[in-house]
């Protein structure tokens, strides 16, 4: 085939050249670089455990620092509008509508002093085991005396 013959006719010689003495000097140059590379690698090899240890300490310190930051910080920081929503939800959950209209059960007025006194008396009478009729008579007498004093 003519084209194939043409390719073969070109020949297989290298069409490129190299600078003078290139291949003579190259092995020495490469050996120098290899030795330098080995020195660098041996320094890294020596320093590697120390560097690893230092990196580990830095890592532990960072973890401790962030952990402390997390502990010191308030559990949840709710933005103001979200806080309003949270309060409304709290009231809906723990109080029905009537209770809210009546007022805060925790701040209800103290029972009147008279009621307290009455309760005290009742307790006293029960403890002393006083007869009911005697008690009524005593009270009527007492009321009569009070009326007389007023008149």
């Amino acid at each position, binding site marked *: 085939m003519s*084209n*194939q013959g*043409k*390719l073969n006719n*070109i*020949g*297989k*010689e*290298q*069409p*490129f*050249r*190299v*600078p003078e003495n*290139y*291949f003579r000097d*190259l*092995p020495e*140059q*490469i*050996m120098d*670089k*290899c*030795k330098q*590379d*080995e020195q660098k*690698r041996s320094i890294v090899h020596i320093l590697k455990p120390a560097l690893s240890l230092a990196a580990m300490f830095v890592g532990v310190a960072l973890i401790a620092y962030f952990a402390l930051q997390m502990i010191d910080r308030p559990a949840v920081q709710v933005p103001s509008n979200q806080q309003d929503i949270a309060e409304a939800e709290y009231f809906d959950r723990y109080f029905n509508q009537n209770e809210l209209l009546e007022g805060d059960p925790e701040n209800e007025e103290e029972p009147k002093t008279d009621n307290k006194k009455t309760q005290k008396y009742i307790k006293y009478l029960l403890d002393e085991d006083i007869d009911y009729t005697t008690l009524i008579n005593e009270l009527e007498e007492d009321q009569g005396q009070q009326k007389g004093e007023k008149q």
Partner: protein
Amino acid sequence: MSEYSDKELLEMFKESEYRNFAFKQIIKKYQERLYWHIRKIVISHEDSDDILQNTFIKVWRGLDQFREDSKLYTWLYRIATNESLTFLKQKKKRQYIPFVDVEHQLMNVLESDEYFSGDQIQLKLQKAILTLPEKQRLVFNMKYFDEMKYEDMSRVLDTSVGALKASFHHAVKKIEKYLKEN
């Protein structure tokens, strides 16, 4: 050329006393073959020199782990090929240009290369080779110029022998067409 066999050199390399000597012999034995292989991929002498030196530094680092079930020279070729292709990819990335334009650039390097000593027909052949896709270019150079066996090429390029034969066949056809048309 080194008077030692690969096996002898590898054994010497394992002994710290002869390590440097053995490695220097390996460089002497393979530097030219690897250089020309790299040069045909990246064209420029300066780039080839850098890649060849990096190749041998990598060999130096990895020779302890080299498994002797494969041939030393196919392993060296493999490293040199990977280094060359990585170089071209980095060049493409650095200059933000598509691969086709890298090959166009290589053609310009070829035309202005002070270390190109070929005649016009050889220049035309090199230009024709640069028009091939990357893999075909590698296969053509390794088969045509380096006369490497397909089995060895298969180990270097991780490609089946059949695919390599087909690739070489297509490459020859394309080059012939280029030579005829230009």
